[in-house]
């Protein structure tokens, strides 16, 4: 299954980001989506992909988040990089404080990887990324945006990425639910029976 422009827009909408902003961001990307619908995309606008001065999410942070998503997301999911990039960057523009929390947690995770695996998180192979996350106890930690290192990585990295996925239509469909909680998917799907 592939994550699409509709998923990124949906996840951003669920996260409180103005759709016009995120759509403009997606419109700057060749691989932004499948054009399968979703809100209007403001194709004429071009806000550019450069990080605004106040936006702490840069290419390095995105690399780490995409590398983490490749661990957290199901293995047969395509389109992870554009989805994560659109979600995280679009959200950072609207919620800079939250983005700083994400960037700090990314730095914490990256430091841990350098200390214990001798390389930045994004350059580790998937097995070592998994080992680093479990080594930090991200699997068992309680999510807490103001907590200890493992709790903040759990909140700002793991839960951030899994919220984006499983509140999106594709994430929901993986489980058999086209309109997951948190996604404004309308009022027809609840009336439909299961597919064949």
């Amino acid at each position, binding site marked *: 299954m592939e994550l699409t422009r509709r998923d990124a827009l949906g996840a951003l909408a669920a996260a409180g980001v103005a759709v016009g902003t995120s759509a403009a961001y997606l419109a700057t990307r060749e691989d932004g989506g499948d054009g399968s619908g979703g809100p209007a995309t403001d194709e004429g606008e071009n806000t550019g992909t450069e990080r605004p001065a106040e936006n702490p999410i840069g290419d390095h942070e995105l690399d780490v988040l995409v590398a983490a998503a490749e*661990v957290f997301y199901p293995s047969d999911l395509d389109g992870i990089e554009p989805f994560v990039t659109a979600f995280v960057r679009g959200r950072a523009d609207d919620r800079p404080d939250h983005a700083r929390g994400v960037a700090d947690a990314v730095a914490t995770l990256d430091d841990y990887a350098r200390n214990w695996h001798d390389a930045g998180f994004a350059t580790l192979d998937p097995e070592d990324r998994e080992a680093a996350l479990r080594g930090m106890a991200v699997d068992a930690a309680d999510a807490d945006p103001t907590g200890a290192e493992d709790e903040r990585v759990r909140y700002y990295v793991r839960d951030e990425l899994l919220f984006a996925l499983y509140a999106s239509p594709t994430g929901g469909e993986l489980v*058999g639910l086209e309109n997951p909680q948190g996604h404004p998917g309308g009022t027809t799907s*609840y009336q439909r029976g299961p597919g064949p």
Partner: protein
Amino acid sequence: MSQSTADRTPSERVDVCVVGSGPAGSLVAHRLAKRGHEVVVLEAGECFDRADRLERMERSIRPGHGPLSVWDMGGPRDAYSSPGDRHYPLNQARVKGVGGSTLHWQGMVMRLHESDFEVRSREGVSRDWPIDYEDLRPYYAAAEDALSVSGDADNPFAPPREERFPLPGFPPSYSDSLFAEACERLGVAMHSVPNARNSEARDGESACVGYGTCDPVCPSGAKYDATRHVAKAEAAGVRVLDRVPVQRLEHDRTGERVEAAVYATPDGDTHRQRARAFVVACGGIETPRLLLLSRSETYPDGLANSSGAVGRYFMDHLFVGTGGTLDRRTRQNHVGFLTSECHQFYDDPTRGTEGTDGAVPAADADPSDLGPIKLEFFNYAGPSPVETALGSEEWGDDLLDSLRESYGNGIAMGGLVGQLPRRENYVALDPSTTDDHGNPVPEIHWSLDDRTRKTLRRANEIQERILTELGADIAWQVGPENTGPAFHHMGTTRMGTDPAESVVTPRSRTHDIENCWIAGSSTFVTGGAMNPTLTIAALSLRLADHLDEELEQN
């Protein structure tokens, strides 16, 4: 949205001061302003920014934020005590802010039945209301219009009505169709649910877009909340002050009239808002608390409390539920509201039913031994995948496998059971604990009686019968041993004709104080088992008419 101003000094020449900006206060304020009266609303909580609702929704879904954080409840401002065996989790479902607890509510809006107004006459227990269904009937219709109720007139057990609902009802869910097969075999009726939720765009808000998080937050605004009437009230000239908790009401030398509402501001000032009339609309807990806090030498037991009934007869509805799994997909958790209910066991919970291939046996009890039962067919049974994912210790393919295993086959029924008013259930002041302004916090005494327990058991029996007929593997039940409140705070300033045993008159004015009125569920004499907000709205519109008459006469 409210244009709450930073200027929190009192207004001059005010006709009506309304304390509280939930559905009761905002409807009263709006209606009186339309009649040309000068109205000020004093709201203890803040005016929330509509743009923050998606962030609030995210807090409601993601671990790391307590449930109280969704609407910034908790802390010294909202402290309370709950002595006794049964704890009352007061802050779980109330909101202090412009719009009140409708920001959090589910949005179910049913009329009380005719029988609910006549419990004493019909069953020989409790008290009758001093007004009946016919008195409230036109106001119910007006309330449905005000709240943009979506509904279909297909409920054979509902009290009589003439008008169509303002909006068409939401169609039944797929899982409703599964229930329907079993219910038909048992002779159990299913019908639609009136929702204060736009099925089509209305009143400046869109149709429901299906976020699925109605309770505790609707990001789209399709679910009615009282900020709509706050905005209308402001457009009609009402001044709304937020973050100004009223500390007490002060009466004049005669003790016959309230002279001023004394309120605090965020910068530490205290002001007195004078008015010709005062409407207390703070909900079933804070309304009696404010009256008790307003005690004086003349009224040492609290304002408007010569009956001793202020705070007494606290009632709630009890949740009752049964659920499990089916061997089929049930398509749950697409939306956060209900589309089918059964009110067949409301007026006579002992009754049996007989269908095409089975029956619900009658209860071995006298009808007066049991209270009303409202049954609900859930559209959100079982786990929500996104919440399960966030709470899991897994990720990747393992997580997806677990989600696929846990989601898809959930099935459940819920319901409400009514509780009669009893003097030993009450809201008092706890002098040992004070809030952020040094006022004693509310102390809630709440318990269940045998009648309520029997009714919960009966509701469980019916739910079990339906789910068994459906072929469900029943996995959980909420009944007499583990029930909890529906957060419908009622009865604490009850209505009546006798000043010796009630707080407000049939017109919703206090017996003792000629210019002090009370809007809200605290005036309910009995509470039935229907969600109370439509009745709150109807009573508030009716109060506004009576208060308007008095203001015109004087």
